């Protein structure tokens, strides 16, 4: 019975708790956190159940108000959207568990408003994933973006300026997207994705459709932070509070990537955007630029969160590269990397947040092996996630790169293959730099008297902050081992005819 309503329930749970949290929060501030975690937990449970259900029973469609599309608005819950909603809801649950302590420290006295906005953010993300209507997607993009700006602006002193820049650039991205769907609407007379996919082959020779495709790719590319459009990302991620950056970094750009996959593969079709003209190649070339650029700049950073932000640009490049390859292996690589990178980045950002709270900074130059002694488990989680980012088997990160590499071989794009291999080395440089300091470098001599290795006691973070990072790290190992099973499911998500 409940299965039928899962598509609508996922955004609705978050929307309802976004309204309920301030209502109860007025009387008792402490109710905000349990509400947020309960909402996130039930959404995660529902999305896992829904994913299993959809794999067995096929795509579900939910018509709002009983209006049959293309007249009405529909939510489409197919294997791909079910899969992505599992990813983001599970990661969000982990981050919100971690939030108990970090939000109490970061957002003294504003927890109620903060959690309420987090719920709105997740409403937007879930809506973006499940909706089957182009204009609806725009509205959900704006819901998630607006709450994203607010969540970034409550961080450090510089954060409002970073959020303002993100707001200007992000709104332009959304406006471009709106302009693009305007072109499509006036050419085809429909906004429903499935309906449009049926009409487009008849009108695809028109240059208007081509312009619409370019404008939509640019608009969503800004949301996703593909290479030349990434300018807003490093500052926003660095200055945002821990919980915000660990929500927006792993999930936000992934949902943008999902929207791009949905529109390119399911509305325009892989044939149109890859063979009939070179949109796919352009995306792949820009993504390769992003992979190299992000990795090189990540090496140059001294601050861990900033380094992770630049590494995000590089990792988004992998997803973009998979999208741009437009062959089955590229698709698998992109979707698998969407999952793996969400887990890896969430884990790394949580570790950076733990270090900021316990050690007071996350400055790489100041790290030494006292970190290992003080926070053994946090650093263990970091190590697993870092190795996964570099791509060591059997960790999850290896397999998405493997499928991307297979994709480049399948299309005989040797330069892209070289980019993947080189970037793995660059990843190794910037992560091993930290690992080397944490596990090898002894503390600086002057402080040796008070801080010598015998005196350093274990000073691990509280369980609510440690467990999510560890669960995500263990998740990376499990995802790596289960990759054959996951890839089998991804085959079911492919658009028809691939």
């Amino acid at each position: 019975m409940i299965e039928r309503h899962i598509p609508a329930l996922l955004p609705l749970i978050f929307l309802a708790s976004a309204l309920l949290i301030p209502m109860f929060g007025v009387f008792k501030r402490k109710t905000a956190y349990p509400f947020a975690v309960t909402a996130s937990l039930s959404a995660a449970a529902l999305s896992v159940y829904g994913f299993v259900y959809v794999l067995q029973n096929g795509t579900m469609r939910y018509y709002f108000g009983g209006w049959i599309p293309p007249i009405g608005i529909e939510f489409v819950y197919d294997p791909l959207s079910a899969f992505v909603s599992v990813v983001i809801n599970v990661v969000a649950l982990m981050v919100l568990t971690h939030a108990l302590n970090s939000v109490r420290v970061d957002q003294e006295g504003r927890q109620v408003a903060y959690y309420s906005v987090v719920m709105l953010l997740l409403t937007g993300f879930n809506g973006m994933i499940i909706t089957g209507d182009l204009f609806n997607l725009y509205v959900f993009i704006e819901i998630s973006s607006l709450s994203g700006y607010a969540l970034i602006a409550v961080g450090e002193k510089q954060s409002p300026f970073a959020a303002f820049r993100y707001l200007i650039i992000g709104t332009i991205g959304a406006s471009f997207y709106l302009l693009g769907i305007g072109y499509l609407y006036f050419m085809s007379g429909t906004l429903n994705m499935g309906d449009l996919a049926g009409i487009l082959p008849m009108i695809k020779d028109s240059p208007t459709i081509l312009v619409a495709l370019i404008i939509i790719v640019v608009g969503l590319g800004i949301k996703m932070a593909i290479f030349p459009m990434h300018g807003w990302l490093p500052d926003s991620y660095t200055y945002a509070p821990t919980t915000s950056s660990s929500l927006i970094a792993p999930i936000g750009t992934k949902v943008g990537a999902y929207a791009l996959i949905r529109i390119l593969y399911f509305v325009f079709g892989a044939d149109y955007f890859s063979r009939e003209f070179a949109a796919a190649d352009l995306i792949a070339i820009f993504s390769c630029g992003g992979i190299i650029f992000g990795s090189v700049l990540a090496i140059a950073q001294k601050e861990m969160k900033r380094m992770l932000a630049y590494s995000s640009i590089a990792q988004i490049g992998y997803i973009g590269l998979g999208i741009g390859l437009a062959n089955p292996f590229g698709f698998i690589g992109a979707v698998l990397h969407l999952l793996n990178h969400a887990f890896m980045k969430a884990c790394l950002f949580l570790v950076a947040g733990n270090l900021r709270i316990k050690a007071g900074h996350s400055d790489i130059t100041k790290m030494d092996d006292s970190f290992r002694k003080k926070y053994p488990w946090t650093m263990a989680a970091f190590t697993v996630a870092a190795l996964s980012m570099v791509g060591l088997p059997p960790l999850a990160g290896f397999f998405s790169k493997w499928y991307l590499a297979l994709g480049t071989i399948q299309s005989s794009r040797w330069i892209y293959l070289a980019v993947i291999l080189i970037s793995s080395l660059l990843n190794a440089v910037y992560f091993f730099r930290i690992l080397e300091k944490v596990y090898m470098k002894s503390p600086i001599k002057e402080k040796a008297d008070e801080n010598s290795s015998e005196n350093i006691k274990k000073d691990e973070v509280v369980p609510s902050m440690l467990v999510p990072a560890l669960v995500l790290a263990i998740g990376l190992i499990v995802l790596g081992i289960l990759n054959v099973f996951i890839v089998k499911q991804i085959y079911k998500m492919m658009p028809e005819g691939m």
Partner: protein
Amino acid sequence: MFDFIAGHYNYWFIILLISIGMYGMIFKKNLVKKLIGMTIFQAAVILFYISSSVKADTTVPILLELNESADVNRYINPLPHALMLTAIVVGVATVGVAFALLVLIYKRYNTLDEKELIERMK
């Protein structure tokens, strides 16, 4: 050639507005002016929808008499207008958030000039 220019004059106007908006966002140093540029850009997109859905000699899509047959040619398409109402609401919310951020920036740095702001942030 003249037909091409005169026949699409609404699109030329929208291109002009988009360019003005882009110019404001990229070249103006004051953050409020950047925001104004963004608003002009959004307004241009909204005008694009509205002007493209214009239809001559038509009326609002309301059935006046029950026995009247619904002739599509007599009515204007209401969907773009409904969409743009939503887009306007979104735009207003965006401007609201942007102003809140600007107030916060001004309280912390006492300036809204981009150059000076970047200097004071160091």
